[in-house]
């Protein structure tokens, strides 16, 4: 079976995400696609707008105990715990592969301290293998008192300005939805120097096994993703689009082209496919083709016409 590729079309699909040129608006949600190799039997990974890699830290993290996932109605919870083998492994093993196949890469960066983010970026800046960074500010962080940085505007501004000094490449800041006012955090990220905002990360949730009287996840709580979170994600993209001037990378439950169009209408310039890959390994290319089909049907000549075009 050949890997799926997007259909040919006259519709203009290219978008500019804060300085990152994407041949189409579709990337993957970090952590759901590894660096793409595992999906390469199913989709031609280099045909995606970009590949966003799994969150990477400096030396690597073990991640959480098992069970790490639970299915919930139209969604799933995960507590992978940002398991990763460290930035050197990512460079040697994955980013070189992505370059060799001609893919556009977005590297998702995580850190337990503000300084760790900077060190990861420094290690990546020493190569020429990164097209853009996505800074995940949803990790629990020692410099934010063990709390998630992404819930405190002052911490967000501080860590993002430190990252800004370390790179001049396009920098996307990925927001957590577990806040009262997402626009406040988005403004802090832009003040810190973000070129784009991505949202949403997973929503904190829980699942319980009534018969065993135990949480389903070893860590009790985890992040909710999949179609169940789409309405929340759309609302947040719409709010942030009105609040800041930088482009947005929208995600949360996108499984087909129409879902993607909805995010673009709400204000997203590009979108990411995450949990949907698990059910449908060609979801990424299917979403691109769904966007094309919508545009052809609706007489849209350039996808950029759709961004924030909600009436």
């Amino acid at each position: 079976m050949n890997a799926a590729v997007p259909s040919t079309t006259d519709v203009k699909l290219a978008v500019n995400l804060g300085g990152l040129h994407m041949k189409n608006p579709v990337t993957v949600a970090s952590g759901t696609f590894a660096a793409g190799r595992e999906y390469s039997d199913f989709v031609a990974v280099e045909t995606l707008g970009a590949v966003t890699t799994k969150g990477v830290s400096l030396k690597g993290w073990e991640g959480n105990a098992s069970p790490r996932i639970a299915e919930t109605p139209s969604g799933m919870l995960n507590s992978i715990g940002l398991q990763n083998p460290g930035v050197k492994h990512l460079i040697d093993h994955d980013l070189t592969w992505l370059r060799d196949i001609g893919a556009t890469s977005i590297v998702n960066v995580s850190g337990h301290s503000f300084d760790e983010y900077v060190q990861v970026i420094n290690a990546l800046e020493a190569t020429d293998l990164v097209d853009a960074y996505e800074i995940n500010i949803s990790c629990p962080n020692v410099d934010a008192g063990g709390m998630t940085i992404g819930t405190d505007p002052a911490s967000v501004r501080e860590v993002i300005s430190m990252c800004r000094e370390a790179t001049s490449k396009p920098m996307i800041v990925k927001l957590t939805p577990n806040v009262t006012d997402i626009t406040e955090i988005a403004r802090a990220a832009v003040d810190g120097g973000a070129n784009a905002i991505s949202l949403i990360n997973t929503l904190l949730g829980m699942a319980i096994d009534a018969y065993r009287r135990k949480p389903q996840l070893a860590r009790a709580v985890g992040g909710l993703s999949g179609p169940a979170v789409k309405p929340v994600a759309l609302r947040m993209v719409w709010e942030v689009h009105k609040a800041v001037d930088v482009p947005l990378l929208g995600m949360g439950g996108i499984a087909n082209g129409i879902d993607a169009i909805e995010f673009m209408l709400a204000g997203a310039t590009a979108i990411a496919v995450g949990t949907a890959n698990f059910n449908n390994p060609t979801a990424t290319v299917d979403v691109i083709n769904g966007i094309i089909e919508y545009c052809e049907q609706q007489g849209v000549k350039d996808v950029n016409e759709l961004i924030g075009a909600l009436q």
Partner: protein
Amino acid sequence: MSHLVNEKARILTNENVGPRLHLMVIESPIIAKSIQPGQFVHVKFPDLEAHILRRPFSVYGHNEKSGTIDILYQEVGSVTRLMPSMQSGEIELIGPIGNTWSTDCTRALLVGGGVGAAPLFMLAETLKHAGTPFDVILGAQTKDALVARDRYKALMEREPCCATDDGSYGSPGFCTSLVEERLSQGCIEDGAPYDFLAVCGPEPLMRIVADMGAKAGVRTQVSMEKRMACGIGACLSCVVDTVDGKKRSCIDGPIFEANKVVW
């Protein structure tokens, strides 16, 4: 890495074979041709939109000529309880996934608890074909639940050793006492000691049998079944703790050397 396909397949039959146990025969010619002992398929059923994850099932049997594979499944939760009503129709299978059992042995003992008998059957076929002597121990709660017994019996041309929790067939109690007995007496055919133990079943069973294998100095492999999301190595949902760190049970496994697993 071997090539994976997402094959559009068709349910041919799906019959009740024991208490909450069913045998599904699926037309899936590409996977039927390439599946190896111990590998599994990651299945998407139609019209289950609220269930966003596929479900993994070992391949119990395959027939290259008819292009079919068999799945032996137990009702344990939401999707497996819906499966018996699917008497026909299209499904999608990602496969063949995972590594395979070792066949590098001269005397093998296969131990299957419950539906754990399924992923061992193709290993038994391979050993039989290679002329390697092997014995089989099957455990289940009741006689009715010993659903793999006939298939093993037909292959081996003799009874597998069986144990039932309620004593309704074979040796009463857990099958671990049968494992102990075989390890001390050696291969039924010639009394020679086993040099390979392959185990699949509930984790506590695998752990006990792995300990027995270690004590007897017999190489032991186990098939680890963890909850899976992607099923193809991308999401890190399914990790097993090993002496070499966390490994993905979907593609680094599902078969692991028992002495490498940190239980």
